[in-house]
Each structure stands twice: as structure tokens, then as C-alpha cells.
């Protein structure tokens, strides 16, 4: 199974509530995926700055003196620790080599995601515990996606949880299972992509990153995915300003969407949407198979 939720706000006055709304949606989806949970929130940008979300199995060790140690290698950083994760803000110009620097000074931390806007938190355990651990309810932002996992294709670990992020400000959540992920992973590695796990969904994320690196927008990359990915999937994808949904042509993985003047919302089931403001009068529909849906704050503006 697995549960997916997503919320793309059109109305800026809802932005302070994004974390709360998404957390409630995620917790309702607990019985679709009690193994692990994760959330990616696009919290807005600060000019010239970038954020890196890192994770450690031993946060007390790895996050101690982190800012000072980054300073010693010439990176001015401020870190906010949330349980096993830390969000490290650095100059955007240093984003390109930050992965190598962490590998050097903190070899045990794993990078969950990075970019100008995105923060990613994911852990094993019940969604309500993951929400509490990272205080996700207090987060604000313009859009976000979340996932509750019932593992089929790889182990129940922090790194196997969704969302997967393989490019700056990009992330993906997946309900389903891909059948050609091993071959596709080999091709993507040959093209220079790197992988953290053996998980099929990470391959889908990396595929979209690679397609967008060729100049495609999110909608075009999702359209290519329909040709190149084999298996079952409902994907919800986030970029710095965009939010996309696509289902495979068989479309046996459930999906419900709702749109009002204030937001576009996605849930694996209608239950996930029932607490949203104005849901009673929202346009509610089931996304069509093999059809790409995407919204973009920048294109709308």
C-alpha cells in the first residue's frame, strides 16, 4: 500500500498553516503505511542562501560543533537541529560542493535533500510520532508533500522512507512498485547520477531530476516518465515552485484530488482531505490514468 498526501497553496494566508494541514492529512493515512513517514516542505527562500537537510543515526555526536567545523573549512553556516535531522543554512554558492564537504567532516550524516527552499524530514515509525519528533505542525510554506510507507521493495529504514530527493529543491513520493528500476538505475549511474539506496522510488526521483537537467519542465519530465517507467505508480512531485501528479496507465493505485481558490490537494483517499478548509465545496476528482497534472507558482504568477 502506502499513503500519499500533497498540498499546494494558492492563497498565501494559508501558508502559516501548511505544516498543520499536511500533518493531519499524513496522520489520517497511517493505516495505509505505518512503517515510516516523511514530509517535504517548501518554506520559502532567502536571497543568496540555501538549505541542506542532513540526518544522523547519532545526532548528539554528529551535530555537536557542526557550525564551527563547517566554519573551519570556510563555510559560514547556521544549523537548526530537529531530532535526528538538522537543517543547515549556507551560502547558495556553496551548494555544489557541500555534499563532498559533509562526506569529509561528517562521514556518517546522510543528506536528505537540499535547495533554496525545501526541507525534508523522514523517519521510521508511526506518522504521528514522526510529525511530533520534527514538530512538523509548526512549519509554514507554500507547498509540501508527504508519504506514509508500507514497505515492499526495500528495507524499513530512514533512507528507504519517502520523500526522495535527488536534485536541488526536487522531491518525489511514490505509491506502487517499479519493475524496471534496476536497469534504469544503471543507465542513470552511467549518466552521472548517484544513489543512496536500492529503492525503486529513488530511481523515479533520479529519473525526473535527470530529465529536468536536460531542460524539461516538471510537466514534460512526468510525461516522459509515462514512457520510460514500467510498473505501478502514483507519483506526487515537488519542485521549488511546482507540484505535479501522475498515475501509470493501469492506475490501480488510488488517488483523489481537490481544488479550490485557496489550494490544490492530493490524497491517496478522500479521507485525507476531509479536514481541509472549504472541502465541502471543492472540486473533487480522481486524476485520470496516464495524465500529467502540474501547477507552478511562478507560471501562475
Amino acid at each position, binding site marked *: 500500500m502506502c499513503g500519499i498526501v500533497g498540498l499546494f497553496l494558492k492563497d498565501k494566508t494559508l501558508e502559516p498553516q501548511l505544516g498543520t494541514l499536511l500533518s493531519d492529512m499524513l496522520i489520517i493515512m497511517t493505516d495505509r503505511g505505518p512503517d515510516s513517514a516523511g514530509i517535504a516542505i517548501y518554506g520559502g527562500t532567502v536571497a543568496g542562501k540555501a538549505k541542506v537537510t542532513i540526518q544522523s543515526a547519532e545526532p548528539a555526536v554528529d551535530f555537536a560543533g557542526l557550525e564551527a567545523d563547517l566554519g573551519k573549512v570556510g563555510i559560514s553556516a547556521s544549523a537548526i537541529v530537529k531530532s535526528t535531522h538538522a537543517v543547515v543554512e549556507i551560502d547558495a554558492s556553496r551548494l555544489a560542493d557541500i555534499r563532498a564537504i559533509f562526506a569529509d567532516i561528517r562521514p556518517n550524516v546522510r543528506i536528505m535533500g537540499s535547495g533554496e527552499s525545501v526541507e525534508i524530514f523522514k523517519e521510521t515509525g508511526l506518522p504521528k510520532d514522526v510529525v511530533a519528533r520534527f514538530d512538523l505542525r509548526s512549519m509554514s510554506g507554500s507547498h509540501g508533500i508527504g508519504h506514509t510507507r508500507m514497505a515492499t521493495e526495500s528495507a524499513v529504514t530512514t533512507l528507504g522512507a519517502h520523500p526522495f530527493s535527488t536534485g536541488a529543491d526536487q522531491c518525489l513520493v511514490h505509491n506502487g512498485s517499479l519493475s524496471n528500476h534496476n536497469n534504469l538505475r544503471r543507465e542513470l549511474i552511467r549518466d552521472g547520477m548517484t544513489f543512496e539506496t536500492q529503492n525503486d522510488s529513488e530511481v523515479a526521483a533520479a529519473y525526473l531530476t535527470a530529465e529536468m537537467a536536460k531542460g524539461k519542465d516538471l510537466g514534460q519530465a512526468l510525461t516522459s516518465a509515462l514512457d520510460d517507467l514500467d510498473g505501478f505508480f502514483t507519483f506526487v512531485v515537488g519542485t521549488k515552485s511546482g507540484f505535479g501528479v501522475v498515475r501509470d*496507465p493501469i*492506475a490501480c493505485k488510488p488517488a483523489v484530488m481537490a481544488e479550490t481558490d485557496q489550494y490544490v490537494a492530493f490524497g491517496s483517499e478522500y479521507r485525507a482531505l476531509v479536514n481541509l478548509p472549504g472541502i465541502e465545496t471543492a472540486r473533487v476528482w480522481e486524476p485520470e490514468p496516464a495524465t500529467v497534472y502540474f501547477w507552478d507558482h511562478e507560471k501562475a504568477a
Partner: protein
Amino acid sequence: MPVFDLSQTPLRELNSALHKLGQGANDTAFEVINPRGSHSVAVGIDSPVTVEVKGSVGYYCAGMNDGGTVTVYGSAGPGVAENMMSGTVVIEGDASQYAGATGRGGLLVIKGNAASRCGISMKGIDIVVHGSIGHMSAFMGQSGHLVVCGDAGEALGDSLYEAKLFVRGTVKSLGADCIEKQMKPKHLAKLAELLQQAGINDVKPEEFKRYGSARKLYNFNIDNADAY
């Protein structure tokens, strides 16, 4: 009239109350409020009870219904009226995938659209959809009628047995062994009866096309004996 508020009352209390009704029970009109997408609302009804659900439901609403009349004033999730035996289920909104799957009898009316696999493996149920249906509908349908006032998606009636399919709009593609068939007076009469039962007055039976099995896939052909 018993009213069950599913935001306050566990679902199991509703379903137990429906199952407990004995022969000749008087209080047979139930109302369900705040279903909020709950699964398995009013499943396993086995008496002529009326259930009005005020809102949208999740998976398997009115599954296995045997004699009840269930109306959902909202939309239904996957598997609504799955394996219905008899009775009537009406969805005022849309239905998700495999509506009426494996149904053996009764009438399912969907006033909006139905998604993929509507009437999959139907075995005697009658399904009337005011709107359109998705792909792979009536897959392996054995008997009963599927009436669609709108359009049908890809692979309608794939591997069909003897279910009868009527579509008023376009059919994106027919599945293996499903063909268009001649509409005979007896089919028009049955269609008129089903449309009337579903409360559709502005559509004529003559506007539909009939689809059924070519009977090449499920019949043994002696010329193929060497293949076994």
C-alpha cells in the same frame, strides 16, 4: 429513524445495527452523517433496510448488499457495492475504481462518472452510469447489464462472457473478444426498463449501441485441439 454520526460513533456500531435487524423490524430507515470518507459503510446488509449516507464514503461502501437500499449523497471510493446480491445502491456523485465488481444481482446507479474497472467480473448485477466510465470496465463480465450514458474508456468488455453492455457515447477501444452487436427489440425493452429504474427520462434507448462477447475466447474451438 436511527441516525449514526460517524464522527462520533464507531463504524462497527452502524454495521452491527444493520446486521441485527430481524424479520419484520419496523425501524428500517437509517441515516448516516459525517462519513468523511470512511471505509466499509453499510456493508453486509441482509434485510430490506434503507440507508441514506450524507457525504462521501471510502472503500467498499454497501459491499455484499442483499436487499437493502443505500443512497450516498456524495462520492464513493473504490469497490462500491462490490459483490452486491440484491437491492439498490445509488451514488449521487462519482464512483472510484471497480464499482459493482463481481456483483451477482441488484441495481447500482452512479449519477456522476465511474472510474476504471467498473463492473469488473459482474455476475448478474445491473449497473447504470449517468456519466462516463474508465478503462477495463466489465472485464470478464459474466452476466447482467452495464448501461453507460456517457463514454467508455479503453478495453471495454475485455475477455467478456455474457454480460450485456450498452454505451450511448464513444468507446475508446474494445477489449479482446468484445464486439458491437445488433440492438434487437428485446434489448431496447430491457434498456428502457433499466433507464426508468435509474430515474433517467431524457435519454432514449435508441441512442445506445450494444456490445457483447464474440464468444471466440471462452468457447473451445476444436481446430485448436492440437495446441493442448
